[in-house]
């Protein structure tokens, strides 16, 4: 039996709550990100207003778009490998749903409390590469195949700095459990002062920067958007997708942005917690029950801040060239993150 807000919930209820919670935790941020950042922030950065007709300030625009996509014809190329073609978008979206499963939202509000949550998150996040490769190959289209291969090369190249950046956090927290990492950040102290706890963005700043760059590349957002370069590859692996299959790719892209931002906020910004010293909490058991409600909101806020960074860079940067991209990953990010691990390990032992 688990208690949420001091109410005992039976096992089937917990499962149901988790499924619903998973849907909400993936789709709500995705919708918010698309409206706030893709529709509005991008427009404002280009000195225009964006959608204004559907609902107040165009807030219902996303529903209109979804309706439009659902109406469209579901086209599959003749030479396409039909089964794989149909599976690919679902595989991409699946990796997002698997990823959200380890994000903690409160002292008791979590989907699963893995001991090796970080490891699991990094593992399932690369499932989307599989989906993208499947999409690129099965479309029977040169552009799609090139886009798929570019995506695979890019995601593999940036998976590595991402893993290495997280290792620094894992060393400092001494655990791979995301819940424990949150605890370590909020209950910790930095130079003897516990006024803001110890969010790892301060001590692991290099790791944070490397992680965010790698996330940018994992999400194939500009300046790392060669796999879906519309001017060279006609949207790459998504070329042949239309209607609701494209919609699934689209949701997957922004849902993954949200979930990666949640993981980044858990690892570096203190996750659902607020510095425990503010309320005199010392460990997980002493955290007040209302954090189960406030926690998701805090995670959501931190996620929005990080997605703002991701999108801001996306809307401001031109695209890298393919070789520049690979060079940046292998020659800059990986050495930097390796050095970060070394310094972290030495300091961990020294203090």
């Amino acid at each position: 039996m688990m208690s949420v807000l001091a109410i005992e919930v039976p096992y089937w209820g917990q499962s149901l709550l988790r499924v619903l919670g998973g849907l909400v935790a993936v789709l709500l941020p995705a919708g918010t990100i698309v409206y706030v950042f893709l529709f509005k922030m991008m427009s404002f950065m280009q000195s225009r207003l964006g959608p204004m007709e559907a609902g107040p300030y165009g807030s219902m625009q996303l529903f209109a778009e979804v309706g439009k996509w659902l109406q469209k014809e579901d086209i599959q190329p003749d030479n396409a490998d039909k089964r794989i073609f149909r599976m690919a978008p679902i595989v991409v979206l699946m990796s997002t749903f698997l990823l959200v499963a380890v994000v903690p939202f409160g002292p008791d509000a979590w989907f699963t409390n893995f001991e090796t949550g970080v490891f699991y998150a990094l593992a399932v996040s690369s499932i989307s590469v599989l989906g993208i490769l499947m999409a690129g190959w099965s479309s029977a289209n040169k552009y799609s195949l090139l886009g798929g291969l570019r995506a695979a090369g890019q995601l593999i190249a940036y998976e590595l700095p991402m893993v290495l950046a997280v290792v620094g956090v894992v060393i400092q927290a001494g655990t791979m459990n995301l819940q424990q990492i949150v605890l370590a950040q909020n209950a910790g102290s930095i130079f003897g002062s516990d006024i803001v706890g110890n969010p790892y963005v301060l001590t692991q700043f290099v790791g944070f920067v490397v992680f965010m760059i790698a996330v940018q590349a994992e999400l194939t957002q500009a300046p790392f958007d060669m796999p879906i370069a519309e001017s060279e590859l006609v949207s790459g692996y998504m070329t042949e997708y239309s209607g609701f299959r494209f919609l699934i790719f689209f949701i997957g892209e922004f849902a993954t942005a949200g979930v990666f931002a949640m993981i980044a906020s858990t690892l570096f910004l203190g996750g659902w917690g607020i510095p425990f010293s503010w309320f005199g909490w010392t460990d997980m058991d002493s955290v007040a029950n209302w954090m189960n409600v406030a926690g998701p909101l805090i995670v959501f806020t931190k996620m929005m801040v990080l997605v703002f960074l991701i999108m801001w860079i996306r809307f401001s940067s031109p695209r890298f060239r393919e070789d520049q991209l690979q060079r940046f990953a292998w020659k800059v990010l990986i050495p930097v993150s390796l050095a970060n691990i070394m310094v972290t390990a030495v300091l961990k032992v020294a203090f």
Partner: protein
Amino acid sequence: MAQIPGMIKGLAVTFNTMMRTFKNGSNTVQYPHEKEAPPIRARGVIALHEDNCTSCMLCSRSCPDWCIYIEAHKELAPPRREGGKPRAVNKLDRFDIDYALCMYCGICVEVCPFDALFWSPEYEYSEPSIADLLHDKSKLGEWMETVPAAPELEAGAEKKKK
């Protein structure tokens, strides 16, 4: 490393634009609700002053898209002077411009020797059916009302000789 200052500058540009749009509104207008007045010499639609046309076919022949269709017949008009011969004038039967083909180059307006064609800044004449973009003589004549008066010549400019 050398690219980082440029990147930050770019980020600042987009951020400042966003803040400016928040404060002062956007540079664009919400089209069907509010409209921008196009400049008076904007190339919106071509108007026909039918009485000036002599159906010389210059416009039709110089049109790169062949989108002007002219048909005419000769008519006898009363003589200019007492006791003279009746004049033969060309009477327009058909003068159509197909705006589905027109590319708004304005060569017809330039080439017209009798000032029968004019640019008008009017731009709202889209049609649900592409065939309705073929504007006939009377419709082209109606556009004449929207043609703005020619701007004043610059001081000291040479007057056009008759």
